[in-house]
């Protein structure tokens, strides 16, 4: 983190948010129907929640909507007319957790590498991340096993730490620095005791995780060398109900299909979230399906997330330890459970 940490009084945060809202769509955790905390575009600073365990739904939907229009296809007198959709609206995602900030960096890399996806990047490059470090571990998270929290050294534009009456703000990028500078007097340079407090909070948070809860290393070895018995995948797959929930709430999942939606006499070619756990994901027009069995699909998911081959390609394991798959699984096949089963060679249900 750049050594330019600043502090803002909590009394001034509403003013800061109001200023941000004048320049961008501000997305933040808010109290939603039913008592959940969910990320949404705010209409007033008072909506922003600071004291929350992470939302069930990750903020990835704001750079990668579940139905994402890509190209508008119209028929007119000349024939077909194509219009690429480009959303470069400035957005701030505020108070996202460290794991989610890391996930957005991961998603950026996926879409920028090899053939850059201009539609995705237009949105992503106009998003500024202001993450809120976790001083208390969430109930089911294991970000320490994925280098994705509770505090970040990189991967966010501004990292906030709750110091009680103040928030410490550490710029992580030039974009973050510029954002803090624009806020002017609302911030003052952080005092040494505040920076010490921030370090203490990080140490305390890490210690509070206790023993690691997801040992990726040995699972990675087995997954990458084909040393997971086929029967184990079969057994585990009996505990999966193929809902696709893990893919939809996972902040690093981004598989999609491309379909044309009819809309008022024209069509919109859309990217739609898809799940590698659905049988039809690899179903070919001929009817042949290389992953017909649920066991093969579950094996595929964990290869993509945990293998060395992907680790080398992506520079990181495909998991940020947010724990959402544990919360959302309609069966019992979440990341920690499966990783443990792979390590031990046995499944406990």
């Amino acid at each position: 983190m750049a050594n330019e940490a600043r502090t803002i009084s909590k009394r001034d945060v509403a003013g800061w948010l109001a200023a941000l809202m004048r320049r961008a769509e501000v997305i933040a955790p808010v109290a939603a129907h039913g008592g959940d905390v969910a990320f949404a575009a705010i209409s007033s600073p008072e909506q922003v929640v600071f004291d929350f365990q992470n939302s069930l739904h990750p903020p990835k939907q704001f750079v990668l909507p579940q139905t994402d229009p890509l190209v508008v296809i119209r028929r007119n007198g000349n024939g077909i007319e194509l219009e690429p959709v480009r959303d470069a609206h400035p957005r701030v995602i505020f108070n996202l957790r460290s794991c989610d900030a890391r996930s957005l960096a991961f998603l950026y890399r996926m879409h920028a590498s090899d053939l850059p996806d201009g539609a995705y990047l237009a949105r992503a490059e106009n998003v500024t991340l202001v993450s809120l470090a976790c001083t208390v571990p969430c109930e089911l998270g294991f970000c320490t096993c994925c280098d994705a929290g509770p505090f970040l050294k990189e991967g966010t534009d501004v990292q906030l730490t709750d110091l009680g009456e103040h928030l410490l703000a550490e710029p992580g990028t030039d974009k973050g620095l510029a954002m803090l500078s624009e806020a002017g007097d609302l911030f003052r340079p952080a005092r040494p005791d505040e920076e010490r407090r921030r370090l203490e909070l990080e140490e305390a948070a890490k210690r509070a995780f206790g023993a690691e809860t997801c040992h990726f290393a040995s699972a990675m070895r087995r997954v990458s060398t084909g040393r997971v018995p086929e029967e184990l995948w079969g057994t585990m797959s009996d505990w999966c109900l193929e809902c696709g929930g893990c893919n939809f709430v996972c902040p690093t999942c981004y598989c999609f299909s491309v379909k044309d939606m009819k809309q008022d006499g024209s069509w919109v070619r859309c990217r739609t979230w898809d799940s590698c756990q659905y049988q039809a994901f690899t179903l070919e027009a001929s009817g042949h399906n290389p992953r017909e069995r649920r066991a093969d699909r579950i094996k595929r998911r964990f290869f993509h997330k945990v293998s060395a081959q992907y680790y080398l390609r992506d520079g990181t394991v495909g998991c940020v330890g947010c724990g959402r798959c544990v919360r959302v699984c309609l069966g019992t096949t979440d990341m920690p459970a499966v990783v443990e089963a792979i390590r031990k060679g046995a499944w406990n249900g």
Partner: protein
Amino acid sequence: MDNLFLPRLARIALVRDETPDTKTFGLRFRDPVDQRDFRFLPGQFLELSVFGFGEAPFCFASSPTRPELVEVTVRRTGQLTDALHTLGPGDEVGLRGPCGNGFDLPSAQGKDLLFIGGGIGLPPLRGLIWNVLDERERFGRVTIMYGAKTPADLVYKDELQEWAARGDVELLVTVDRSNNGWTGNVGMVPTLFDKTELRPKTTLSYVCGPPVMIKFVVQDLLMRGFADDAIISTLERMMQCGVGKCNHCAIGHRYVCRDGPVFTFRQIKELVE
């Protein structure tokens, strides 16, 4: 940055019936700049938009040495291809590509080439074959083996005759089941191996067709002494984006739409499902 999903507009310039359920479409870009600048390699594929029905991947069936028309050969298998088959010259489609890796033609120079196609597997080879024939002097012997279920199922019937008539190409055709009037070979494609002289040490073989046919042909070639990196094939998978993002065509960490669709048999063996 470009929108990866934006097709270029093209018009159908030509439609040719190949078999009762297969047609070849010749396409020309609407924008002359696209027409002039478009480049592709045999073995690559394109994503064809049939407006109102969506998009689907098809291999280039024409050679880059003959760029006036981009050709695809399409069998009817569902809604989109049914709709495509109702279109004719003048109708508009969308074209996104080229996608994938293509055949590595430069490294084949000087070698003997053996093309083995089954049924609807001939189209990806056709582009490569014409490319080779258009630069014939760069390559050694050229042998083409092709088989289909019945004589009616043979694609490119006129071109088969053209190839047969050439002196610098050996063409062997067979059908699984013959009918009245068929005087050629009868039997599955591997039965053609004994009808020619194979030189495994100097030959690259290109195999395209239904998975079951590829399996038997490759087994046969290996037994006859072909090295596993001298056998080249194309893989098919369900695809959506065609540009390595959507993950539908991933096999292990390889993507058929980026690392393929052309693979050597050695590479195929190394793919982890």
